[in-house]
């Protein structure tokens, strides 16, 4: 087979690992990845990637194999990810905060040749590694890595002739049916996004980015990690956000870009209240931006008062690598618009009649461009349902355009975005329904400042002694923390529609109106 690389990015890169190679040649001594346990320059990172490729080959990883990486932001996670793509294996990026059940589903669906756990920076990854009976190996700069057993049954995927179109990351999202879908993002997808994101924000080798968004998810991967490395900037890796550590890092390390979620900015507001601070100033910080969930006006204005600078906003979905629109530094918004369409991406708004929505009118948002995924792994029907014959991806979100800026007015009917993570009610319901004492359940979102909470309504078998706390514990065993209900409400009977379906709109209103605290455990006789 002959490799073709005719379609390089405009920066002349073919593979995502090339972002490191380029700067390792030009400025090898500039810090690339910085974390509390140590730092690597671009030169050191390039060497680490090369060493890691040789290491991966020693335990049977081949081109076309899926290699699952379970972890949180750290040098080991980044290096294994870039090393696998450089040798044409597919990294399957998995957040260690997922539950054992979710990790097992992804492992089975992806047919991973090996599962690696970057455990030094993640107690959750260490727990998963213990459960998998992994061999533990110490590597310089990595700390401990858990190496799962070799899957000898699995077959490597055939590689696309064009290198840029080969899969560079497989990221699983929970589907609307609760079954995880593997989004295949190519080198071209990710480099397009990294380059565009860095250009919009004028990121340079002088910049220092705060790397807290999980690199197992699309924004953390393409916008933060690759968007930093492609510009030769320094990325300060942080496995989890807490406002106090963030404040110290922003100040001490003179961070210039902070990309977060509304939940992160809400925590910064809470931190300011705790410390009785009316302003938080970081002289080096030049851009703060939110994405991952709808930004409410209160959070935006509160942060802008606190930081004394504009809070930018963006929107995207994993399947679009992920950004579709973002506000521009040179054109800040006072509202919660998601800004103008990402450079090089096309959109159209389609009305319920299938025709283009009228100017200024609301329509379903369709997207086309180099950021659109290759498809869902091993799910051709789902791929065909998402991307039409002309290449338009259907976000299933409702939007309208105002002076060239997009506003999202409604989202996929049921999706809950909790702390920046997508939570599909069907998945939570399927877990609750599996409890032997549960008749049926319905999960809805409740809007709170800067976030959406997960509220589960559950109908139990008559006479059962099961409590909401029991159900919360049960859910905790089967769901990642961010998917667990904030409140579980026991219902004597579920409200139904005329056709006998659970009336979710009614439950959503009930959840919103229920003034009880967010702690689990309420019984309503409605």
């Amino acid at each position, binding site marked *: 087979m002959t490799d073709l690389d005719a379609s390089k990015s405009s920066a002349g890169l073919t593979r995502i690992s090339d972002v490191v190679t380029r700067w390792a040649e030009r400025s090898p001594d500039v810090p690339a990845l910085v974390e509390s346990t140590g730092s690597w320059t671009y030169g050191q990172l390039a060497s680490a990637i090369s060493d890691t490729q040789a290491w991966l080959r020693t335990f049977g990883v081949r081109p076309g194999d899926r290699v699952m990486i379970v972890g949180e932001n750290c040098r080991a996670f980044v290096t294994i990810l870039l090393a696998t793509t450089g040798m044409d294996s597919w990294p399957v990026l998995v957040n260690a*905060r997922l539950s054992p059940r979710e990790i097992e589903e992804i492992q089975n669906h992806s047919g991973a040749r090996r599962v690696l756990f970057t455990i030094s920076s993640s107690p959750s990854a260490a*727990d998963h590694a213990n459960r998998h009976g992994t061999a533990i190996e110490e590597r310089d700069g990595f700390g401990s890595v858990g190496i799962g057993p070799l899957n000898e049954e699995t077959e490597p995927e055939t590689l696309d002739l064009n290198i840029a179109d080969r899969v560079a990351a497989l990221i699983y999202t929970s589907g609307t049916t609760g079954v995880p879908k593997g989004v295949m993002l190519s080198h071209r997808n990710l480099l397009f996004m990294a380059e565009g994101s860095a250009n919009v924000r004028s990121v340079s080798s002088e910049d220092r980015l705060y790397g807290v968004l999980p690199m197992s998810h699309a924004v953390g991967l393409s916008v933060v990690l690759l968007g930093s490395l492609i510009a030769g900037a320094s990325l300060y890796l942080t496995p989890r*956000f807490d*406002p*106090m550590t963030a404040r110290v890092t922003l100040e001490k390390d003179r961070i210039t870009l902070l990309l977060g979620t509304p939940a992160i900015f809400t*925590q910064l507001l*809470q*931190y300011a209240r*705790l410390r009785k601070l009316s302003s938080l100033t970081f002289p080096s910080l030049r851009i703060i931006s939110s994405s991952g969930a709808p930004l409410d006006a209160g959070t935006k204005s509160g942060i802008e008062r606190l930081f004394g600078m504009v809070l930018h906003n963006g929107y995207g979905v994993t399947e679009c690598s992920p950004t579709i629109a973002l506000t521009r530094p040179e054109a800040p918004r006072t509202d919660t618009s998601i800004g103008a369409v990402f450079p090089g991406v096309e959109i159209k708004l389609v009305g319920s009649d299938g025709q283009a929505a009228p100017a200024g009118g609301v329509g379903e948002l369709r997207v086309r461009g180099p950021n659109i995924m290759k498809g869902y792994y091993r799910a051709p029907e789902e791929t065909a349902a998402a991307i039409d014959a002309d290449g338009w991806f259907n976000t299933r979100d409702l939007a309208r355009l105002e002076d060239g800026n997009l506003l999202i007015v409604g989202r996929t009917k049921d999706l809950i975005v909790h702390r920046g993570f997508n939570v599909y009610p069907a998945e939570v319901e399927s877990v609750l329904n599996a409890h032997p004492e549960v008749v049926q359940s319905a999960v809805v979102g409740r809007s709170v400042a800067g976030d959406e909470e997960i509220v589960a309504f559950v109908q139990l078998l008559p006479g059962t002694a099961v409590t909401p706390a029991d159900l919360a514990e049960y859910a905790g065993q089967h769901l990642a923390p961010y998917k667990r209900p904030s409140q579980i409400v026991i219902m004597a009977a579920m409200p139904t529609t005329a056709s006998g379906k659970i009336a979710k709109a009614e439950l959503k209103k009930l959840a919103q109106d229920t003034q009880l605290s967010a702690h689990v455990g309420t019984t309503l006789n409605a």
Partner: protein
Amino acid sequence: MQAVDIEREVRKFVVEHFLSGHAEKLRADGSLLGDVIDSMGVLDLVAFLQARFDITVDDEEVVPGNLDTINNLVAYVARKLEAKA
């Protein structure tokens, strides 16, 4: 305040706030900053420590060595109280 009193107060707060009352899930040397206390919870924990023990938890002190286990928390609070006395 005795270490045993500090431990009782801290343990009670963590169990009630983060473990829905399931005290049996808490080990004195088990990691709290993973699944037990998420990032939002760290703020609550700091607010509790400041209010209950009348101490100031500096941002620089929010590190696993001080907050990650019940034992570390107790030792940290005891140090702060001693420094204040």
